């Protein structure tokens, strides 16, 4: 074998394997840098732009301490559910059941308190455990049986809707006993709403789990390359199951807080969390990191949605505009996130 042949083959293979190219680029350097910038800072730019616009349009009401507290309070439950969803997303799995789990959890906790007259300290942990259990079942179906997560969680989510109707008959439940349950969501500590504190606590714990524990490291590794993780001796199935369980726990927690906030159990009140959570998570993946899901990003994503809705309501935009806004945001978020992944490591 001649040396020149060896060299030629090596260089060709190097380029094919994605080594940093030294010569021409397919796309111009400037374009790809611009796309990378948008996919890394797009969400934050959109958030800042909205804050500026709404502040100019509503100088007396938008940028006030009261309104900031309103926005944080309104987004808190959605942030908890979305942050929970972020964990399986980081591990590379979708969970479509979270909204239905939130709805059922809210209804069930009111039912247990009012109809069964359970004490709050029993009803709340039981419903949280049930949400975690549904997450575990999702994880088992996806990892051990190998059903596509999209289909599996759509299936379990639909089963949860069935359980919801079986329990309630499709009729909303009013809170008739343990009236102090509403304090869980509506109370304040030093002027800070409980919901905001709960959001800070859950998001803080999830951030620590993902970034500081061995479990979080494994979930992140699986999301990037399940095969590399498996070869390194990581229990891939176990980590995926834990991720789904965390999402189920957060969905149930969100549902309970929602019921406390409303003082009743509505049959479908939490279903919308699914869409807003995905929108937030995808928006978040276009914030600071190039197309990766992360907790801080999801918080920024939820904040973006909340600021948009709050501002639109404040300037008196008709309700249909809010739907147009949310829907467009979701599509743009997913597009940004895709750009990020495509141009991240070039």
């Amino acid at each position: 074998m001649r040396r020149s042949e060896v060299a030629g083959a090596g260089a060709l293979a190097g380029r094919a394997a994605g080594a940093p190219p030294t010569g021409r680029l397919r796309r111009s350097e400037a374009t790809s840098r611009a796309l990378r910038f948008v996919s890394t800072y797009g969400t934050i730019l959109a958030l800042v732009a909205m804050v500026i616009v709404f502040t100019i349009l509503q100088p007396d009401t938008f940028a006030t301490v009261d309104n900031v507290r309103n926005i944080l309070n309104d987004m808190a439950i959605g942030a908890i559910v979305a942050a929970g969803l972020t964990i399986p997303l980081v591990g590379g799995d979708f969970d479509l059941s979270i909204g239905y789990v939130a709805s059922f959890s809210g209804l069930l906790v009111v039912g247990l308190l009012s109809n069964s007259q359970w004490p709050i300290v029993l009803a709340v942990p039981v419903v949280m455990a049930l949400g975690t259990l549904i997450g575990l079942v999702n994880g088992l179906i996806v990892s051990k049986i190998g059903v596509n997560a999209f289909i599996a969680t759509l299936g379990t989510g639909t089963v949860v809707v069935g359980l919801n109707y079986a329990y309630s008959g499709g009729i909303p439940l009013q809170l008739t006993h343990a009236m102090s349950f509403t304090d869980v969501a509506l109370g304040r500590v030093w002027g800070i709403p409980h919901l905001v504190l709960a959001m800070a606590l859950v998001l803080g714990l999830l951030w620590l789990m993902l970034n500081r524990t061995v479990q979080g490291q494994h979930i992140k590794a699986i999301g990037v390359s399940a095969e590399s993780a498996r070869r390194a001796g990581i229990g891939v199935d176990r980590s995926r199951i834990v991720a789904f369980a965390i999402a189920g726990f957060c969905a149930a927690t969100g549902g309970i807080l929602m019921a406390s906030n409303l003082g009743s159990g509505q049959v479908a009140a939490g279903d919308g969390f699914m869409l807003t959570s995905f929108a937030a998570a995808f928006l978040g993946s276009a914030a600071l990191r190039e197309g990766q899901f992360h907790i801080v990003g999801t918080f920024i994503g939820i904040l973006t949605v909340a600021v948009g809705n709050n501002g639109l309501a404040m300037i008196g935009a008709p309700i249909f505009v809010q739907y147009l806004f949310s829907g467009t945001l979701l599509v743009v978020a997913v597009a940004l996130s895709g750009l990020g992944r495509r141009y991240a490591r070039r």
Partner: protein
Amino acid sequence: MPVGNAKRLVGAPPEPPLIVLRNVGKAFGAIEALRNVSLDLRRGDVLGLVGDNGAGKSTLVKMLAGAHDPTSGEILLDGVPHLLSPPAQALRLGIETVYQDLSLVGSFTAAENFFLGREIAWGKGPALFRWMRRRAMMDAAVKGLEDLHIEIPRIRTQPVDRMSGGQRQLAAIARGAFWGSKLLLLDEPTAALGVRESREVLDLITRLSARGLTILMVTHNLEHLWSVCNRVVVMRRGTKVADMESRDTTMEEVVAFITGAKGERDLAGAPLANHGA
């Protein structure tokens, strides 16, 4: 010869080879990927495994890595029959594998990849309650790389997919050497690299060998093989057709074995496959 070995020669029986494959076969359904392969891997060997595509090289490596169990025959580690699967078991036994696509997690730093699946952490029990000691892992990985004289810029902060292909390969091999107390398996370590980067990887392999690590390396590049390996094993159609000291043969002869122009030869002392079976 080192003093320790000289003493041992007086009374105790000689050390068994590190790994012995005894009449090992592997069938995937009706397809026999490996037939009756016997191979001794001595401590300190740097063995180059060559053969055409589909000759059984990868199956052999995956078997040693614990990804497949043999369907016949047995594998002895230090003279004791061992089941190497699952891969985590092979890792526990001191066998490390650097796969062709490197098995690194792209968004992690070299240090994070070093300790992937073997994190240093406070606490016991489920991974959920084990707190990573990031500084300790970072320091250990950086020291491991320094010990091997591997210099990678911004090693503490740079994710591996921002590194060049050669740096990634060096980091992946260094990870294997860091953990691999007994055997390091390298699948095409220079296949995706340019000339200078290949040189660096081959230099690293030489340094690891000088430290006494046993290495088995699959390659298509005979020049690279000759520059680091003391043994050549040629596979063809699922069997071992040659097992030679590289100083006793030539590239031309090895190519002849690979293509089938030449029959079987065994100068390394291991008995060849028994064709009566």
